[in-house]
């Protein structure tokens, strides 16, 4: 089989359109994971043992079972209990929860890297717990977390093809459809690979830049 430039050019607009969907899925999934992950991380540091233990267990469960199973579960098992979700919503919930578990570990590491003296200084000037987190601890936990957060951003982006199993029209699903219709898989799959490669490389470079910028911005060298 020969590479067909004309065919590649023909399918490119449709593939690029699907790329938008892929980016959107990664973006929304990551936003959910970023916020929920912070909730998981902070919940594990409270002084309520029931809360810390149960959140710990949820995180362990999410990290120890395959993402694709979690996607299936939300999409196919949900309706049996009266929770019918569209592929998009189900997919975002599953991927958001899955990565929230991973991100919570990144945040936890970041928070633990802040020295005990910072917490004590907050007590000494009498900040509330919420002020302590929001104003003092989290800003300092951010720079050491950026690299890990960036890894999972790229990871979540590369995991979006799993959403094709429940019919989300992202890049992989579109490539499959094009391949099936034309009996040509070389060009669509190659384009998928290139799109992922380019975006991942670009993201990795941006994250490194962001890490340096945030350190300078916070006055930490």
């Amino acid at each position, binding site marked *: 089989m020969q590479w067909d430039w004309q065919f590649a050019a023909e399918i490119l607009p449709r593939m690029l359109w699907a790329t938008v969907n892929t980016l959107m899925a990664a973006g929304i999934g990551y936003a959910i994971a970023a916020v929920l992950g912070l909730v998981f991380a902070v919940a594990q540091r409270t002084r309520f043992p029931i809360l810390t233990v149960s959140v710990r267990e949820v995180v362990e469960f999410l990290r120890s079972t395959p993402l694709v199973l979690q996607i299936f579960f939300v999409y196919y098992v949900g309706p049996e209990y009266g929770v019918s979700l569209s592929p998009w919503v189900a997919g975002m919930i599953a991927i958001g929860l899955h990565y929230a578990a991973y991100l919570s570990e990144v945040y936890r590491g970041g928070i633990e890297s802040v*020295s005990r*003296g*910072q917490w*004590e*200084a907050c*007590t*000494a*000037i*009498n*900040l*509330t717990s919420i*002020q302590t987190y929001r*104003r*003092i601890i989290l*800003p*300092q936990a951010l720079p050491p977390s950026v690299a890990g957060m960036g890894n999972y951003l790229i990871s979540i982006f590369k995991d979006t093809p799993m959403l094709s199993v429940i019919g989300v029209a992202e890049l992989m699903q579109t490539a499959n459809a094009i391949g099936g219709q034309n009996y040509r898989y070389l060009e669509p799959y190659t384009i998928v690979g290139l799109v992922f490669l380019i975006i991942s490389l670009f993201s990795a470079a941006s994250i490194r830049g962001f890490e340096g910028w945030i350190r300078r911005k*916070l*006055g*930490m*060298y």
Partner: protein
Amino acid sequence: MQDLSSFPLELTGPNIPMVRFMNVRKAYNDFVVLDNLNLDIAPGEMVTVIGPSGSGKTTVLRMLMTLETINGGVIYVDGKPLTHMPKNGVLVPADAKYLRKARSSIGMCFQHFNLFPHMTALENCMEGPVQVLGLPRREARERAEELLSMVGMIEKKDQHPARLSGGQQQRVAIARALAMRPKVMLFDEVTSALDPEVIGEVTNVIKELVTKHNLTMLMVTHQMGFARDISDRICFFYGGKIEEQNTPDELFTNPQSKRTQQFLSAVKAAD
């Protein structure tokens, strides 16, 4: 659960101490750090705690800042219980809300400064007044600038801590604590992490505080000369107890206890 019925709900009568440790006990599991500590500090008094490492002197300060919980007894500040709160006519361990209110009259400076690294010197000093006291930013800024001038750091007010020397950071930390207008200031080995040539700039600030302000102060230090110069009273701690306490001149020239004598001669030999 200890019986607290013999402890008063608040201190009354003339000459109420600013700080009172009453039968205070602190232990980590089986290891007793402080046992049956009784110590009064009068309003405006400057008390320095000295002693060998492991004698529990830093713990005294940390308990007063509520960074450590106590395992027995009660600490009173300004006549009111700090570690406990009155409930149905008896004292019970303070909850988080009570503690926050009770410790608002106490400020502390640490060995390692603990400035907020992502904020400038000025922002460090404005954080508490704005967030905790609810001061308008303009007013908090004026207060912070006034204090930074007092400690000689106004020129560096827009620098982050990473750009300041240890002595400069410690002076900013003192200004940050004072910005909360505490009645009691705690200094926990504030010169121990400093290079010898900058110790003076920090001790001078503290000396000025002693002479010009009516603060009650409790200090842990290894600078014996400094302690002698500025303290009203020195407490020598040994093995979790006050072994001996007296005015600086008496304690340094005429120590009664054998352990005090040993400690002082060892310190003198090291100098």
